[in-house]
């Protein structure tokens, strides 16, 4: 079957040419051309409505200022472990002021790493436990590259978390399940004990297909139950 000429399809989609009997006959029989035609018509229709969108006025500067302070608010002041001397030791890069606490925290993290331990986590595990999903946790940028972990979702709905070389914290490490499509949506799972392995219950009814991004964060003791914005490890659950 001879398909309609691409130029012809475009002409028809732009309503520049009238559909002739031969065109309609073919379109009635050929799903490919029909689909192509619908797509082109839609795009032509949408395209003709874009005249006012070519040069949209930029938002007022106050919006950007609000974004900057919103970002600053997602961070916490650096832990007191980051001393001036340590900050000075850092390579200087052009960063805006609000990033400085993060850099200091990263420095503290690097210095603290030596104190962490790696243990054979799976030594006394019963092999019969059924794992329904798992994730490998990788360190985020500001975190030492040897930090990491594994997460397993057990058939009984518990989360087994196993981390290594996490930077020391003056607060605590908390486990979250995030929606990667909208990372502001998350479920708090619990905090990690000072042990290489933890088993924490997932709230019943949690949709693990949606909340599939495991996130380990560094939380200060500030009484604020929301995520500190200081993520250390992340990994996506797969079954």
């Amino acid at each position, binding site marked *: 079957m001879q398909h309609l000429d*691409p*130029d012809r399809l*475009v*002409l028809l*989609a*732009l309503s*520049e040419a009238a559909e002739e009997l031969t065109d309609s006959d073919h379109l009635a029989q050929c799903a490919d051309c029909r*689909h*192509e035609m619908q*797509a*082109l018509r*839609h*795009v*032509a229709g*949408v*395209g*003709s*409505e*874009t*005249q006012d*969108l*070519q040069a*949209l*006025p*930029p*938002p*007022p500067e*106050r*919006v*950007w200022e*609000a*974004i900057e302070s*919103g*970002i600053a608010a*997602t961070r916490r002041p650096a832990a007191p472990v980051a001393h001036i001397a340590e900050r000075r030791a850092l390579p200087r890069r052009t*960063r*805006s002021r*609000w*990033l400085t606490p*993060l850099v200091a925290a990263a420095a503290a993290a690097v210095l603290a790493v030596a104190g962490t331990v790696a243990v054979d986590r799976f030594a006394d595990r019963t092999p019969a436990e059924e794992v329904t999903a798992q994730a490998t946790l990788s360190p*985020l*940028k*500001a975190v030492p590259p040897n930090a990491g972990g594994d997460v397993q979702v057990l058939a009984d709905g518990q989360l087994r978390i196993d981390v290594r070389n996490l930077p020391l914290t003056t607060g605590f490490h908390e486990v979250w399940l995030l929606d*990667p*499509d*909208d*990372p*502001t949506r998350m479920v708090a799972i619990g905090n990690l004990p000072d042990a290489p392995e933890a088993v924490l219950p997932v709230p019943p009814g949690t949709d693990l297909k949606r909340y599939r*991004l495991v996130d380990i964060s560094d939380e200060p003791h500030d009484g604020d139950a929301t995520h500190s*914005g200081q993520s250390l490890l*992340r990994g996506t659950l797969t079954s």
Partner: protein
Amino acid sequence: MSSDDELAERLRAGDEAALRIAYDRHGAAVLYLAQRLLNNRADAEDVTQVTFVAAWTGRDGFDPDRGTMLSWLLGIARRKAVDRLRAATREQRAAQTVQAQPVTPEADETPERIVDRLVVADELGRLPAEQRRTLELAFFDDLTHPQIATVTGLPLGTVKSHIRRGMHNLRRRWEVDGATLGSRSTGPTRAL
């Protein structure tokens, strides 16, 4: 001009300047979408702010292979705007005020259509100048190919190929990024 790939990499590395670039490029489209959905300037600016803060905190979630930066941002903005509408509805119920619902948007003013328009407008702006010019004359001035040839002084064959290629580019972008039938959530992009 850095590509979405470069922007994504810089964002992931925690480079605030990359967020500013994304904002300079797409902030106006985000604000426009929010304003169309919420019908309120102040709320729309709030949603724009919330969108870019969420983009920053969720920057690891941007995958240039799944769509452009613009469509990622518009997707966040749309969810934020819908959240706000829902919250407003809840507040209204809580206050027990019986009020007429906001005017139902016209059929061609669905969020999907607005997103489609922003995506196609963005792609139109990226086309080579002559391709864009010929398409604009066809879209906005409703000129035929021969009329476009006369207006632009280009040979008819050139006009035809500009329009065919331009339509093809718009259509491909819409399939990757568009909201209506763009198949990001329903499966792989259909074959051309």
